[in-house]
């Protein structure tokens, strides 16, 4: 019995827990949430065991396939469902289960007053199981099962409070946007199958590397995979759902819409590296999409007054960084995953911090009514602050080690490509870092510093200064925040020691020779820090030193556009929703009048003929007799006439 044979437990335990919680119903209300925590923690323990096992092997042996069962056997096509344990999938397993367990723990307190807490934990467990299927799958088809599973869990959790119509609509929007991406994955799978006749990663890698697929076809597959990634990871142009997804309870935003599920697109691109290696055009488009999203998300983040939506915009932007890195090819894969891990920690930590703030501020999210919360919520302030320093990329916090590497990688001229690419993507990434510093500092100062824009005395309360009693959250909530803050502080440094993380991922991402960027590394680092410092100072001047108005000022054209997510909903509405609705309406009309019309018309015709003919059936025996006689006479005449 080897350790790797424990791998199926990773999926089975959370799935079983979800089933128990859902099937037992109210009987499990009293202890259900602890079962959920336990299931997630058990998955983490299995993941940790696998890690020690893998670390004990040679780098070359670190890809283990665990056969589960024969899934589809049709003719020559034989697909087995199996788990692939390699450094990449294990990294995800550990991230998902570790952050997941912390967030489960946090939710015990955060959802304590919710009557449906058990159901919430059932969905969280379902999500963990689906996410682990996604990352552990050894074929695109099994990955798709997990891909749909996390989409379902995300839908259920965004709409957890679906008695509020707008929350239910947000859940639906996320689901539909994800469906658009799923079409991409389905088409990509169809194309891969038509070209190679198989869908498991092993054969796809072998088939693509043997040159059996033309470049044009690889480009098409790559673009379809990118579409899938855009849907799942809220990348341009399918980004509009992420902001609305903040309707879900905050732990959900932390787990699904910051740390894990939204990064599945990055995973897909890195996992499909062989396809993208053979399609430079698709790779370039991946990079462009990443660059657009990172700037778009950052600009939107600058204008949001809702703390959760601001964080959502930031998530979008940070995933833009990861996608950009993944588009850079082998040089970027490891850094994309590295940033994904550190981002998982500090962003989840900040979301939990936002949840803690909401918990103490009567569930309001409007930062214009926050301020000066540092004194009343010290732990939240400190943990959020560490996350803030990490996302800014201030050394030696985690974000510095991962984001800086991406910016450096963006400044490298890819092999056989024009030099402008390095400059364009490098500068976009650099500027993005500056804007990130601005909006994150704005968020931090508006929430925790400055003057209080609320009051705790009933006498002074007004619409301008609502009555609030901010207080620190219970220890069940602060402990996960502290653990994640420690991660934001030290994880990046620890993982990059001696190139540890990139070496660890090498069995999947391949070994990369060092490339010199167009600017020297110290220059890039200093420029990045300078951009960050400028952003921070600007934010301090406007939101730290000056009083923040409690109602949003009108703002410039750009601010107004950013407040409504750069009109992405309007654009989607005009370009997709309206024509779509027109199409469905005309289809319904066509169906009713033409297709249905033909059939009901036929029926009506038959009925009409019947109506005419029924007049013959009078029921009078004498009339029938007369008809018979008349018929007989006619018959006799017909028979006899020729003879006379």
């Amino acid at each position, binding site marked *: 019995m080897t350790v790797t044979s424990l791998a199926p437990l990773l999926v089975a335990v959370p799935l079983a827990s979800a089933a128990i919680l859902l099937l037992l119903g109210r009987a499990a209300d009293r202890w259900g949430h602890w079962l959920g925590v336990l299931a997630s923690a058990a998955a983490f323990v299995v993941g940790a065991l696998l890690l020690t096992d893998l670390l004990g092997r040679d780098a070359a042996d670190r890809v283990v396939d665990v056969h589960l069962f024969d899934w589809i056997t049709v003719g020559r096509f034989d697909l087995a469902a199996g788990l692939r344990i390699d450094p990449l999938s294990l990294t995800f397993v550990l991230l998902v289960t570790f952050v997941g367990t912390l967030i489960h723990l946090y939710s015990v307190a955060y959802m304590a007053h919710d009557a449906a807490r058990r159901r919430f934990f059932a969905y969280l467990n379902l999500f963990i199981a689906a996410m682990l299927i996604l990352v552990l799958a050894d074929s695109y088809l099994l990955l798709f099962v997990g891909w749909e599973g996390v989409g379902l869990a995300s839908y259920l959790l965004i709409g957890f409070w679906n008695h509020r119509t707008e929350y239910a609509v947000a859940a639906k929007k996320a689901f539909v946007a994800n469906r658009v991406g799923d079409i991409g994955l389905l088409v990509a799978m169809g194309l891969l199958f038509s070209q190679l006749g198989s869908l498991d990663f092993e054969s796809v890698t072998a088939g693509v590397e043997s040159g059996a697929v033309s470049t044009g076809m690889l480009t098409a597959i790559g673009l379809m995979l990118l579409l899938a990634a855009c849907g799942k990871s809220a990348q341009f142009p399918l980004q509009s759902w992420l902001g609305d997804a903040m309707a879900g309870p905050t732990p959900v935003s932390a787990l699904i819409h910051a740390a894990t599920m939204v990064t599945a697109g990055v995973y897909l691109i890195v996992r499909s590296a062989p396809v993208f290696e053979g399609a430079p055009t698709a790779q370039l488009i991946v990079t462009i999409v990443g660059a657009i999203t990172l700037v778009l998300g950052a600009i939107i983040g600058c204008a949001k007054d809702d703390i959760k939506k601001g964080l959502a915009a930031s998530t979008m932007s940070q995933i833009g960084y990861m996608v950009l890195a993944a588009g850079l090819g082998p040089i970027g894969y490891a850094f994309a995953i590295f940033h994904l891990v550190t981002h998982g920690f500090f962003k989840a930590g900040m979301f939990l911090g936002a949840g803690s703030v909401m918990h103490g501020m009567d569930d309001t999210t409007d930062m214009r009514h926050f301020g000066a919360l540092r004194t009343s919520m010290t732990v939240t302030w400190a943990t959020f602050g560490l996350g803030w320093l990490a996302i800014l990329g201030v050394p030696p916090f985690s974000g510095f080690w991962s984001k800086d590497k991406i910016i450096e990688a963006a400044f490298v001229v890819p092999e056989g490509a024009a030099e402008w690419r390095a400059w364009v993507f490098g500068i976009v990434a650099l500027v993005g870092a500056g804007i990130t510093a601005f909006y994150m500092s704005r968020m931090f100062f508006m929430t925790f510093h400055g003057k209080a824009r609320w009051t705790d005395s009933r006498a002074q309360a007004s619409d301008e200064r609502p009555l609030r009693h901010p207080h620190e959250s219970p220890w069940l909530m602060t402990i996960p925040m502290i653990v994640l803050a420690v991660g934001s502080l030290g994880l990046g440094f620890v993982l990059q020691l001696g190139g540890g993380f990139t070496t660890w991922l090498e069995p999947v991402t391949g070994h990369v020779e060092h490339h010199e960027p167009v600017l020297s590394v110290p220059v890039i680092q200093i420029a990045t820090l300078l951009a960050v410092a400028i952003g921070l100072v600007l934010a301090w001047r406007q939101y730290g030193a000056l009083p923040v108005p409690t109602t949003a000022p009108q703002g410039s054209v750009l601010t107004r556009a950013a407040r409504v997510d750069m009109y992405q909903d309007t654009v989607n509405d005009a370009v997709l929703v309206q024509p779509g609705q027109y199409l469905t309406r005309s289809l319904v009309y066509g169906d009713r009048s033409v297709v249905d019309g033909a059939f009901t018309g036929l029926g009506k015709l038959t009925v009409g003929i019947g109506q005419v003919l029924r007049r013959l*059936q*009078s*029921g*009078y*025996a*004498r009339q029938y007799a007369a008809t018979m006689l008349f018929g007989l006479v006619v018959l006799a005449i017909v028979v006899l006439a020729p003879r006379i």
Partner: protein
Amino acid sequence: MSLTHYLVLSGILFSIGAATVLLRRNAIIVFMGVELMLNASNLALVTFSRLHGNLTGQVMAFFVMVVAAAEVVVGLAIIVSIFRTRKSASVDDINLLKS
């Protein structure tokens, strides 16, 4: 008197019978019309038997008589039973079959 006269008489009787069936409302009378038509055809059959010089027509006439006897039994039973339930012997009152 040639055999043609018998055939003409048969035709006349048949026509009277048919007219009775078509024009009279009383079920008993209509029934009598039916009988008259049957007997008119019997007469024609016997005449044809004579005409062809074999017995086929007469055998047919016997069959018709047997069937007519059976028909009278069933028909009268129906008429009586209808009269008992509907207090009427008019064929026009029995029009439940109309659509």
